[in-house]
């Protein structure tokens, strides 16, 4: 009987103590803020391989032009006929453009410093036009391609070598709308 009493007292003490502990926790919840644990990924997720279509959607016009998806072509001195070795570049440009029929294009015609200012504006325009016509012959929509000539006022490289003249005699393809 004495043993029973002792047990009861002990039990009630434990209960009281417990109750006190609970009370204390309730009074100051701020002392132990509940922190949610964020699980760190255990494996590195690989970047998704974007399709050409997705890349096109994702990139801005500026980025697309900066990436030089459309390659420029060069011309012979004082000429605006498309060189044989440039036709493959135009074909590649056309292949890409055919995939994205919403694209609008500005073809820029440029000249080297060996021509005069007035004549070069006309020559640059002929170059831009020749490049446009070639793209159209490969199936592109002429209405989506505009041309502009800068003559010799925007050289790509400076220098008085045949190589730099060649670099500057060019048509560039700028995407203006996608």
């Amino acid at each position, binding site marked *: 009987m004495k043993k029973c009493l002792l047990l009861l007292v002990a039990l009630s003490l434990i209960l009281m103590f417990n109750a006190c502990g609970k009370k204390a926790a309730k009074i100051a919840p701020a002392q132990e803020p509940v922190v949610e644990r964020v699980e760190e990924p255990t494996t590195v997720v690989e970047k998704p391989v974007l399709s050409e279509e997705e890349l096109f959607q994702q990139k801005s016009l500026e980025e697309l032009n900066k990436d030089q998806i459309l390659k420029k072509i060069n011309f012979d001195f*004082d000429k605006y006929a498309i060189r044989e070795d440039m036709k493959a570049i135009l074909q590649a440009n056309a292949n890409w453009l055919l995939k994205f029929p919403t694209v609008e294009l*500005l073809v820029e015609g440029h000249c080297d*410093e*060996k*021509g*005069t*200012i*007035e*004549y070069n*504006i*006309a*020559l640059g*325009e*002929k170059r831009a*036009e020749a490049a446009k016509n070639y793209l159209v012959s490969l199936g592109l929509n002429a209405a989506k391609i505009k041309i*502009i*000539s*800068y003559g010799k*006022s925007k050289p790509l490289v400076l220098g*008085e070598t045949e190589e730099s003249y060649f670099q500057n005699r060019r048509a560039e393809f700028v995407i203006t709308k996608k």
Partner: protein
Amino acid sequence: MGEKMRICRTVLCLSICLLSWHLPCQEEITIRIKEGMPMIPVAMPEFELSEAAAQKSEIKSTIYETMWKDLEFSRIFKMVPREHYSYIPRFNPRAVNFKDWASIQANILISGQVEITADERIIFSIKVYEVASERFIFGRNFGGKKELSRLIAHKAADEMLKHFGEKPLFTSKIVYVSESGSAKDIYIMDYDGFRPTRITFSSAMDMLPSWSADNEKIIYTSYRNLNPDLFMFDIYTGKTELLSTGGSNYAADWSPAAAQIAFTSSKHGNAEIYLKDMKSGREKRLTFNPTIDTSPCWSPNGREIAFTSQRNGTPQIYIMDAEGSNIRRITTEGSYHDSPAWSPDGMRLAFVSRIENRFDIYVFNLKSNEIIKLTENAGRNENPSWSPDGRHLVFSSNRSGRYQLYLVDYDGRNVRQITAGGENKMPKWQKAPK
């Protein structure tokens, strides 16, 4: 806009605030100079400065030096070197000893006096004498704000030209393209490269400016709408007007005979020459050729147009009647010619010719078929434009690195650089006043 208005006001000021008036009392004599006559030796001793203006001697020096350089440049006058003045007694404007000046070979003697008023205005007077006959020829007074000392000197030098039967030259202006950084804008400056004033403020390229026949408007090409279009700027109102409609449009030249411009346009797909009536706006196409036709330039009588065409394979200079008919080829040698510029007397055609990678300026005499070369193996020399009196040309050249503007006489003498800094090109000298 505020900036623009300021320019207009400045330009207006130049025309309004300068007054010149004749000296009374003495009779004036006008002397005519015939072609081929030797230059007239002129002596111009230091100008006198009024006592009240003693501190302003730099104004006097500016006027003196500017006027000296003008007269020296003219090809009408030959300045007797200043060193020679030390051989004779000092010049006394109140008691001129003509024998002294005759002894150092002066035919004409200019006596000048500079006064600066209490409100900081310049009064500049000249008296011009013929030495041999000991006669007074003419006198003039000029007045203006003290900032305008160079203009006052140019006005006085122009009076010298007028009295020797010539048209004014030294107050004429040059319009050109100046490039600093990536912007290319249009500027107007004095013929000697001083006092540049900017007239376009676009972040896009502005280029190939030219004057209207009355010198009150500038027509130029701008890429501001992402297309080479023609714009017309009115110097006096500050207004800008779009002239072209579609295609690339450039190289405008205003007819000396009517209110119309000739210009190059690709509005129908290929670079062709068109006329535009500036009153009705109506256009007329002059060339019909699948190759490049460009760079139209009116003859001074307005009946013909010189231009560049590639119709025979390479760019060559041609002349057609102003209706587009009677096309004849002018340049026969060489593989590249452009930028024809008809001299104000109608006798000569200047143009650019390329040999290897150089450009030189040539002058073709339409009467004698003679060709002379004005520039010699010095980089690329481009865009020649005649002075209103036809004795000089302005052109651009990269002979010293970047493009700058240069003057040269009609016979290739006296090459002189007039701009420095940045890059300056495509000059057009004002047209001869009517």
